[in-house]
């Protein structure tokens, strides 16, 4: 196949490109410029997006003997990922920008451009597997190395996108092996640190960064009864489940720590309470997609007038959260998930990814939650 390898400058994408070359594909490397004003040096735990990273990617491509280009997606990235991130927070939700980037940039803007220019697929260094299902429709599965599995952030990919995605690292048992392989291949990026911060927030301080972009006004921190127990500098800087940074002078009546239960931009209130009030019995969302065949076509659920009936699955609500057994069904255009045990710390705006075994079935953006304790409204 003629494939386009997205190369961030990090070790994973370099080894993924190398494996694509070794597998006999006709590989071209491309680095996505996501900022018009990139930082010069790599800093902290960011693994991409600086001039230094771009040059690392160029060098790795040169060592692999593949052509390499830098393509400018900064305008699309700003609109689809950065602006979306800000507006989601401004609305009191907690978005996942990496998923948005996969959905709108890597497997949309980049993939579209790749297909237009005659490529068959985009190669990335994600840890996940795509396999052909019984009817030939692609299926997305967790990586062999559970600890590195990134299928969650790929849960937004649709059938068509999966058909044109190649993840050569999916069956690698550990990241150490990828680093060793980079070393053995002389790719020069073997010892680069893993990236785990948000790439467009160079200082790593999301709250400060948001404060420069969202007009924030002081407001009240209230308990679940509505009693004012503190003040904040702007509700939008808070995330459900957050414990630090509340600066409540008065301890709670029972002395137990308090957590952010709800962010209400409309009234500029932050609702806090005990940990058990974070428990969520039901989540729902109308913005969903299926990674391959839908639950009915896959034979997991019975079809109904509303879509599909209850089926057993697992739900994962963060990149590094454990999957929780649940039932999912569709009603009134919405995907609804009821976990067997309450979920803890769910924020609207997060993405719920549904699994059956290792297979990713699909995802939806959480629009609403129902508290298990009924103390949060």
């Amino acid at each position, binding site marked *: 196949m003629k494939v386009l390898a997205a190369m961030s400058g990090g070790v994973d994408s370099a080894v993924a490109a190398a494996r694509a070359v070794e597998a006999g594909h006709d590989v071209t490397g491309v680095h996505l*410029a996501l900022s018009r004003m990139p930082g010069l040096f790599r800093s902290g735990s960011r693994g991409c997006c600086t001039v230094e990273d771009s040059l690392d990617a160029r060098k790795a491509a040169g060592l692999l003997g593949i052509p390499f280009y830098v393509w400018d997606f900064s305008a699309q990235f700003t609109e689809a990922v950065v602006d979306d991130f800000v507006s989601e927070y401004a609305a009191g939700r907690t978005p996942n920008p990496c998923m948005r980037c996969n959905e709108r940039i890597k497997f949309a803007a980049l993939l579209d451009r790749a297909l237009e220019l005659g490529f068959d697929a985009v190669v990335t260094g994600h840890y996940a597997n795509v396999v052909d299902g019984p009817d030939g429709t692609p299926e997305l599965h967790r990586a062999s190395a559970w600890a590195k599995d990134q299928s969650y952030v790929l849960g937004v990919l649709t059938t068509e996108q999966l058909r044109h995605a190649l993840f050569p690292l999916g069956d690698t048992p550990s990241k150490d092996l990828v680093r060793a392989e980079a070393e053995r291949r002389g790719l020069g990026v073997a010892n680069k640190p893993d990236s785990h911060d948000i790439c467009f927030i160079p200082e790593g301080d999301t709250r400060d960064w948001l404060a420069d972009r969202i007009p924030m006004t002081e407001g009240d921190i209230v308990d679940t009864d509505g009693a004012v127990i503190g003040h904040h500098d702007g509700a939008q800087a808070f995330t459900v489940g957050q414990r630090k940074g509340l600066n409540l002078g008065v301890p709670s009546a029972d002395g137990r720590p308090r957590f952010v239960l709800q962010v209400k931009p409309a009234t500029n209130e932050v609702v806090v309470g005990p940990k058990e009030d974070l428990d969520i019995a039901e989540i729902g969302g109308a913005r969903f997609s299926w990674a391959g065949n839908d639950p009915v076509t896959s034979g997991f659920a019975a079809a109904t007038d509303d879509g599909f009936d209850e089926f057993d699955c697992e739900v994962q609500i963060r990149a590094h959260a454990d999957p929780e057994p649940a039932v999912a069904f569709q009603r009134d255009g919405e995907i609804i998930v009821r976990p067997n045990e309450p979920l803890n710390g769910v924020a609207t705006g997060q993405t719920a990814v549904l699994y059956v075994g290792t297979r990713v079935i699909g995802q939806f953006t959480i629009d609403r939650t129902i508290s298990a304790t009924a103390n949060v409204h």
Partner: protein
Amino acid sequence: MAYFDHAATSPMPAAVIDAWTSAVHLRGNASAIHRDGQKSRLLWEEGRDQLSAAIGANPFDVTLTGSGTEAINLAIKGLFWGRNGTPAEREPGAALPRPRVLTTEAEHHAALDTVHWLAQAEGAIVEFVRVDETGTVDLADLAAKLGDDVALVTTLWTNNEVGTIQPVAEIVALASAAGVPVHLDAVATLGYTAIDFANSGLAALSVSAHKVGGPVGVGALAVSRDWSIIPLIHGGSQQRLRSGSLDAAGVFAAGLAAQIATSAIDTKAARLSALRDRLATGILAAVPGATLRGHATNRSPGNVHVTIPGLNSASALFLLDEAGHSVSAGSACTAGVHAPSHVLRAMDVADDEGALRFTLGLENSESDIDALLRILPSIVARTTT
């Protein structure tokens, strides 16, 4: 399969490769007293003689530098300090006698970033002389801006992006009447248009060897004895205006490259112009919406620069590269990304116009041009929204 990016760098002729690689075998430092040193020195002198002859300058007035960019920095900063005194010579807080620097917004970054540095570090006042939609300096605006307090005028002789050739004689005449020195960046001129520095009235002129098939790492600045230039690089005083060991092999090769590039220059320019016009005419006929940028007639014989509304230059360059054609978008890049061209902006070209720059050399043939013209329309169609 052809190379259309000679303005970025030009292939080295076999004779230059031979000259360069044979000279590298010499072991003496060209400033050393012994005969080994003398042999190296002679090669360096021969190289400088040939390079000087190629630009019509007295060899002793030509300073060899490490790049065209360094030559431009030396000219602009050196002339500015020559006209205003160095910071060490000036009274603290004293006003600069000639703070204004005149240039255009369509310059190469080697000049633009240098004048901006002078503004920040030295308090220079940078004023941009208007260029018209062809990139040509507005002489009336230049005349209006000239004055006693102008340190220097610096501009491109030949615009590196769009190929426009400036009215050099008129610029020099206006500046000379006002007693102001002129520096010209002639990096894109050498080898395409005859240069006669000694009779030009210019204060300084910079060139670069690798643009004409010499080695990367050799630039040169010709300086008139009428003007004082303060050096940037201090040390062993190997040259009057630049310290650092003399690059005997590089300068020897650069001299030969310049000699080859400028011999029979009229014949060469005529041949390149014919290729250029064949390409430009072909593009304008076959690519809807394409506009030839730069001046229609006062342009480099080797430059075809077109813009197309909605063209994604990066995608088009990729497909051209894949088909074996090395082409450029013309503008400077940051981390490999092409920013909207400041040159095109100075010429009032809209940002949504995607640019393609083809710069030709003598090894290009009519069949190269025709092969390019066969695939270009479909590539543009595929990469235009």
